C-alpha cells in the first residue's frame, strides 16, 4: 500500500520496484495478444512508460496488476491496429490435427486457411477468441483487461467462432 502511494506521488524508486515485480506478468499478457516476443518486449516498456506518465491518476487503493493489464491491453491493441499483417499469426502444436499421411496436404491447407480466416476477423473478436479459446484465460480476467462485461466477452467469442465458420466455408473448407 505504501509502495503504491509512493508511486502515485511519482517516486521513481517505487516505480522501479513495481516494474520489477510486474514486468513478467505484463510481458506475458502482451505476448499472448501480439504473439511476437520482440514486439512484446517493446510494448512492455511502452506500457510502463504510459503507466509512469499516468502515476498521478492511479488510485493506490486499487490493484496495480489489474491496472497494468488494462494499460497493456490497450497498448497491444494499438499496436495490432497499426501493424502490418504477419506472414503467419499462429503456430500449431506439433501433434495437432493428427491425420494419416495421405491427408497431409489437406491438413496443411486447413491450417493455412484457419490462420488466414482468423486474421481476417475484426480485431475485438480476434482478441477475445485468442485469449479465451487459444490461451484459455478465464473470462473474468479477459473482461477486466478489455474493460467490458463478461457477457460481452462470451458474445464476442461466440461471434468469432460463427464468423470463422462462415469464412472457412467461403474458402471452401468444411472443418
Amino acid at each position: 500500500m505504501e509502495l503504491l502511494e509512493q508511486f502515485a506521488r511519482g517516486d521513481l524508486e517505487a516505480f522501479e520496484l513495481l516494474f520489477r515485480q510486474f514486468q513478467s506478468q505484463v510481458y506475458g499478457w502482451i505476448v499472448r495478444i501480439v504473439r511476437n516476443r520482440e514486439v512484446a518486449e517493446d510494448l512492455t516498456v511502452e506500457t510502463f512508460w504510459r503507466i509512469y506518465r499516468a502515476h498521478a491518476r492511479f488510485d493506490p487503493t486499487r490493484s496495480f496488476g489489474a491496472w497494468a493489464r488494462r494499460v497493456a491491453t490497450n497498448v497491444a491493441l494499438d499496436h495490432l491496429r497499426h501493424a502490418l499483417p504477419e506472414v503467419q499469426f499462429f503456430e500449431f502444436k506439433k501433434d495437432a490435427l493428427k491425420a494419416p499421411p495421405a491427408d497431409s496436404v489437406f491438413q496443411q491447407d486447413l491450417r493455412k486457411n484457419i490462420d488466414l480466416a482468423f486474421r481476417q476477423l475484426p480485431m475485438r473478436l480476434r482478441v477475445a477468441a485468442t485469449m479465451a479459446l487459444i490461451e484459455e484465460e478465464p473470462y473474468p480476467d479477459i473482461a477486466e483487461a478489455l474493460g467490458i462485461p463478461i457477457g460481452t466477452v462470451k458474445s464476442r467469442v461466440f461471434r468469432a467462432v460463427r464468423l470463422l465458420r462462415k469464412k472457412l466455408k467461403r474458402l471452401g473448407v468444411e472443418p
Partner: protein
Amino acid sequence: MKEQNEEKIRELLKTMRSADSELNRDLWPEMLRRLDSGPVRVPWYDWALVALVSIWCLLFPNALLGLIYHL
C-alpha cells in the same frame, strides 16, 4: 451441422500453440533509457522564433503574403 462445425473450429483453435510467455531478460535498463529520453520538447528558440514571426505579421500584415509564398 452448424453446431458440429463450430465445435470442431473450437477444437482446432485449441490446437494453436500457446505463445511462449516467459520473459527471458530484465527490461529495466530499456525502461531507464526510455525515461531518460523523456517527452519531445520544443526548444526555447523555436518558441522565440514563433513569437517574432507573429509580432512581425502584426506590425506588417502585408508581409504575410510574402511569408506564405516562401513557405
